């Protein structure tokens, strides 16, 4: 019955835990159950649960084949990340240097992590198989009929439905998110950079060196990191709240009772969402370019005689990215807030207008507090999204304008764009990973705290 439960890291309830503890099973299990410790599914097979038993056995065989045939060569070198670089030997006969591939540190690390995850998974499966054998034994001792494979399936459709539902997504998440994340976190503890590139060279563990460098010991890197961190937070605050307020004001205007053609107005703004973001941002960077149409127009109209350095002067560029982000983001906020705005109880406004409150007053004392209360989770998501807002920055300014006292970065660079440039342009993976971990910690702790304190999480049960 628990054939797949390992995947969802399902912990049995405490009383079951007692009966199904290994100690108890070892004491009370019969020979077949005990044999299941070595040969998975043995107990099930013996008690005529053929399909389940065979599945366990097959899993065990495949696992051992995998470990011996594939994983071992990598796991064995995890400690050093490889000791033999690519070799070259002169071959007189062929008149070339013959190459023999050496260890590839990156693959060693990656496949080791993968194998470790598989080992954990296998351990859970093994525990489940032992328990399944013991359960079958208990059922037999009580003289009941063994559940058939069909029964198991039925349970998976009802009582164990969460197992059915979560298995596939969990596997996907482990393969494409968890495994890569562990890999990249480990990279931060190595010296994987342009001078230690596999397959020609190997990299190895360096402990906390990258962290100390970024945070204090290397003045240039630490200084850059500090300034970029400050700008990232400033940017996230401005980008989030400017979008939030202007989007809400737009939604309020469209929602106003006397305004007609509501659908048309909304559609106009929605069109800008539909143009792929990288296209609209590339367009924006063209439009705002020193030689772009906007400067051309302003000059033709006689407002300016010199081009305005929208994207090339630090201050201008910082303002520009925030403004363009408003252009990009308002339609989304408008869509999201217009529904909620309509939910604000109308009598609040009525009593306020009887008291003679001005529209601004009503916005400040009714709309805003209500919206802030209701949309806190959305704001947090938006804030974290802006800390990681790669597209807007990278496509508009590429982080520029660069300055001489930053390490490989410019004045509008966020931590994410900096780490992207470090990875793609400079192959400095270890430094990038270090920054990535830091970004990750900020975002994760913030959203965890807010989600778990906010109404969304606490009121969850109210609907039940």
């Amino acid at each position, binding site marked *: 019955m628990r054939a797949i439960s390992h995947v969802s890291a399902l912990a049995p309830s405490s009383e079951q835990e007692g009966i199904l503890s290994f100690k108890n099973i070892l004491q009370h299990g019969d020979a077949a159950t005990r044999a299941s410790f070595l040969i998975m599914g043995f107990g099930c097979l013996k008690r005529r649960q053929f399909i389940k038993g065979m599945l366990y056995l097959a899993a065990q065989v495949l696992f051992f084949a995998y470990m011996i045939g594939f994983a071992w060569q990598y796991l064995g070198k995890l400690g050093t990340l490889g000791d033999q670089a690519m070799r070259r030997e002169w071959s007189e006969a062929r008149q070339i240097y013959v190459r023999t591939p050496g260890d590839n540190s990156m693959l060693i690390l990656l496949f080791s992590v993968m194998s470790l995850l598989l080992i954990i998974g296998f351990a859970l499966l093994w525990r489940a198989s032992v328990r399944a054998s013991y359960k079958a034994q208990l059922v037999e001792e009580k003289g009941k009929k063994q559940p058939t494979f069909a029964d198991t399936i039925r349970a998976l459709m009802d009582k164990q439905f969460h197992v059915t539902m979560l298995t596939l997504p969990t596997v996907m998440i482990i393969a494409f998110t968890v495994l890569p994340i562990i890999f990249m976190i480990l990279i931060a503890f190595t010296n994987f950079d342009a001078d230690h590139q596999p397959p020609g060279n190997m990299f190895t563990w360096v402990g906390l060196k990258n962290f100390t460098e970024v945070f204090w010991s290397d003045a240039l890197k630490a200084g850059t990191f500090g300034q970029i961190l400050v700008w990232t937070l400033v940017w996230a605050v401005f980008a989030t709240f400017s979008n939030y307020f202007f989007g809400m004001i737009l939604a309020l205007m469209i929602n106003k009772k006397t305004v007609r053609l509501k659908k048309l107005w909304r559609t106009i703004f929605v069109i800008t969402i539909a143009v792929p973001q990288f296209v609209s941002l590339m367009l924006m960077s063209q439009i705002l370019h020193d030689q772009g149409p906007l400067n051309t127009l302003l000059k033709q109209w006689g407002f300016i005689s010199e081009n305005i350095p929208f994207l090339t002067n630090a201050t201008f560029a910082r303002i520009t990215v925030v403004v363009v982000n408003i252009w990009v983001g308002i339609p989304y906020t408008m869509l999201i807030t217009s529904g909620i705005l309509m939910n604000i109880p109308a009598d609040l406004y009525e009593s306020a207008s009887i008291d003679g409150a001005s529209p601004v007053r009503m916005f400040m004392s009714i709309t805003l507090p209500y919206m802030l209360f209701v949309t806190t989770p959305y704001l947090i998501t938006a804030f974290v999204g802006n800390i990681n807002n*790669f597209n807007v920055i990278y496509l508009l300014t590429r982080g520029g304008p660069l300055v001489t006292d930053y390490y490989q970065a410019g004045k509008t660079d966020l931590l994410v764009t900096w780490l992207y440039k470090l990875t793609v342009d400079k192959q400095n993976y270890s430094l990038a990973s270090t920054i990535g971990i830091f970004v990750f910690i900020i975002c994760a702790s913030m959203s965890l705290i807010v989600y778990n304190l906010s109404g969304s999480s606490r009121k969850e049960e109210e609907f039940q």
Partner: protein
Amino acid sequence: MKKKMNLRLDLVRLIPVCALGMAITLLLPWLHTVQTLGAVTHNGLDLVKSQNLLHMTPLTAAGVAAILLSVIALLKPSKALLIAVAAALSACVLSGVYALLTLKRAADASGLLTQAFLMRDLGPGLWLYLILAVVGLFLTLRAMREPIEYIVLTVMASVWLLPIVWLVLTAFRQESGAYTPYIMPKGYTWNNFTRLFTETAQFSFPRWYLNTLVVAVFTCVFTTAMVLMISYTFSRLRFPARKKLMNIGLILGMFPGFMSMIAVYHILKAIGLAKSLVSLVMVYTGGGILNYFIAKGFFDTIPHSLDEAATIDGASKNLVFWKIILPSSTPIVVYTAITAFIAPWVDFIFVSVIMKDEYQNYTVALGLFRMLEREHIYEYFTRFCAGAVLVAIPITLLFINIQKFYVEGVTGGAVKG
């Protein structure tokens, strides 16, 4: 009687004043005598006429119409007349903006007008004309007791639409090149579109378009299915470790995605799927399913009494999902599906890491991105715009048609209090 009371007559009186002011600004050039490049002295209006700057005609026509209509409205105020005045004033604004956009080109083309004349006389006149027209519009709306939000909304709508209009114009532009020192194209053509489909040796746009469509459809199906599975489980089923798993999911979603790209690529390579469209579907699905929080929030709002009743009637959890939850979740299904469908159209980073040199399996976003590289931008910029328009069309249609669901889904889920 009551109808007339609805209009604010004091404001109606001010409208003709504005309109007359507009007429005067049009005459501003006449006040100055100007030297042309040919060293002959003219007065400004002569020049405007003789150089055939035709965009002045609609401007004048709209202005005259505004004066006439507003005077009639003054004598015999009625709602219909004021609407006509508003229309005339809007025409003034439109023609004014068009004149502003083309003025310099027309002047340059004539080869006679000096820069100073444009800046000093014609320019300010036009600007005053525009401002007065907007003030007139404002007054008209107030007089009709219509919300002045229309003006703000129109201005905003044009700011939001102008880049899109520019994109479309450039897509039809005849001459190639990126940063042209003028706004309106010199000539229009369909060639940029047809060449995307005929000249495929270097940029096989049709193939990429098809790739993206296929990937988007599959990603959409898988992601939607899995997101619904996860959010239903977290919203409706109670099991140990539920809270823990939800928090883990939340945290995982915070990791900057492209940090894991390289690892993802090697994993895909290890299972023999690198550089294939299948791998793209897997990657987008893997990334998309972590966004289950909105859907989960939406499910939370569906009353529990419904599924409890069904459970008492003996329905399994599986059945409850299909018969109770799913039918009442159209908005969130649509929301999730759209978000998943769009991802492959807009991503160019993951796809470049995964596809590398496998040119045939590019998606349209990466292909378009490549057109802007330094060696290609001059020749391909207009085709890039054409391609972008082709990408935007289906997504726009999709959005317009299911906007309602999108709004309901996201408001129901994202921000449940």
